């Protein structure tokens, strides 16, 4: 682990800001799915790179935490590597790529395949927190729609999908109803991950830096994906298994191998994939 940077407060943000953000987080936990406004700070990375998630992580991380950061399921992409290094240097915390070992996981666009457990916190980076904006651009109006649970237009969106494509074509950022009350954008995770949000033992926090909103799904909270009786919610399925670990359970990415159209399907969750490869199964055999 590299040395902690001199001259910065623990986890970069000043304590006042952290307190402010923690208050927003507490409120968000108290009202599952409700978007709490907060005073988003300038961070040393551009909007769209996870400024919301980083501020949430910075406000709740402690010296004993073990941090995992994933981007599209991978621990080794630029964004994930940079954020992990940022916290190693500003907070001196331990980091890991193993889902089971982590106490705090910051993610962009995926939920790990390995089931989360009580005590873990999953922090999502959110680009657009408002699920109603698609049909109603006025923020004053969408806030009232949330307040009054006036949610007819969410199904209008799904109706349009079916009318146009014969099925609900929304694959990412598939809207959910949290605790039977608030409609929430789950951030651009694939709908494959939606069922994992439901009654998850871990605490799920969502940070949108540019839009200055925090929201949360507390442990074991009901999260339902919107659908129609005759067009029920369905997750993606693949005809094949992961080319590396052979898993038929996980979310697969299609990787183009060469210029001749060669392609391969592999797990998007790199940690899960590694732990399921044949060479790892020796460990299990040893037990």
């Amino acid at each position: 682990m590299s040395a902690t940077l001199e001259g910065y407060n623990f986890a970069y943000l000043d304590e006042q800001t952290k307190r402010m953000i923690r208050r927003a987080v507490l409120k968000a936990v108290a009202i599952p799915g409700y978007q709490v406004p907060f005073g988003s700070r300038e961070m040393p990375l551009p909007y769209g790179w996870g400024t919301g998630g980083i501020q949430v992580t910075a406000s709740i991380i402690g010296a004993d935490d073990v941090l995992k950061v994933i981007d599209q399921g991978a621990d080794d992409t630029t964004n994930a590597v940079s954020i992990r290094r940022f916290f190693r240097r500003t907070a001196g915390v331990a980091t890991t790529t193993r889902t089971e070992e982590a106490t705090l996981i910051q993610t962009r666009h995926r939920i790990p395949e390995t089931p989360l457990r009580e005590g873990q916190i999953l922090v999502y980076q959110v680009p657009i927190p408002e699920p109603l904006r698609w049909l109603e651009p006025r923020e004053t109006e969408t806030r009232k729609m949330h307040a009054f649970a006036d949610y007819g237009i969410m199904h209008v969106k799904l109706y349009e999908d079916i009318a146009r494509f014969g099925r609900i074509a929304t694959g990412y950022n598939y809207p959910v109803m949290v605790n039977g009350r608030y409609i929430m954008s789950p951030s651009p995770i694939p709908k494959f991950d939606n069922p994992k949000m439901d009654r998850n033992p871990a605490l799920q926090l969502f940070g949108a830096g540019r839009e200055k909103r925090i929201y949360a799904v507390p442990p074991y909270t009901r999260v339902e994906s919107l659908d129609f009786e005759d067009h029920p919610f369905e997750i993606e399925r693949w005809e094949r298994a992961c080319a590396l670990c052979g898993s038929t359970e996980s979310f697969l990415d299609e990787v183009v191998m060469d210029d001749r159209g060669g392609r391969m399907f592999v797990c998007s969750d790199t940690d899960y994939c590694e732990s399921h490869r044949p060479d790892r199964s020796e460990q299990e055999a040893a037990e």
Partner: protein
Amino acid sequence: MNAQSPQPLLTVRGLSRYYGQHVGCRDISFDLWPGEVLGIVGESGSGKTTLLGCLSGRLDPSEGSVLYRDRAGQSHDVYAMPEMMRRRLARSEWGIVHQNPRDGLRMAVSAGANVGERLMAQGARHYGGIRNQALDWLDKVEIDAGRIDDSPRTFSGGMQQRLQIARNLVSMPRLVFMDEPTGGLDVSVQARLLDLLRRLVGEMGLSVILVTHDLAVARLLAHRLLVMRGGEVVESGLTDQVLDDPQHPYSQLLVSSILQV
């Protein structure tokens, strides 16, 4: 009109709306009975649209009250009830037909979705059922079933207006507010729309508050008229009485100004 119903649907008392010094409408009182079509006539600037806004829960009045009796027979002060309830009423028991269909339609989604929205807002969750109801309503307002997945942007003005009517009536409202529903349409298109409105209003037993400057439209649709001038009601009564034997100087002027065809 339903004579057995002993209670008005809407009770308006002393309704005024001021814009600073300017009077939008002043001291308006009337009852609207179930199944009754009330026309509000007057020239532009007479306060018709302000009054309609105040009646339909969209424009806070400066003074006065609007009481609405809901389907269950419960009376509600429209401006004392929580906004949430007002909105729920507005999308279930009420309808609003705007002069410009673009104000009343969602132009970004298909015709079918426009008609289905109220059903979905009320909890309908069966796609096939919603679609069948949408088809049924498109048929009622004489829009070809083949247009169900088209955007209202591709519709003519008359079709957009008929779509707006279907979108409102699909929830089987009891009270519909209409602001110059035939304004801006060609005469031949107007006739079709008027006939349609007349039929639907009769079949569904709707109560309607209809703002129009067109006295021919008022004669065809309204049972009773309020004549407005300068924000005040200068005359009210049976439609044919007001039009055939107007009493107030302004009503006489208004009636005598119509071109006879």
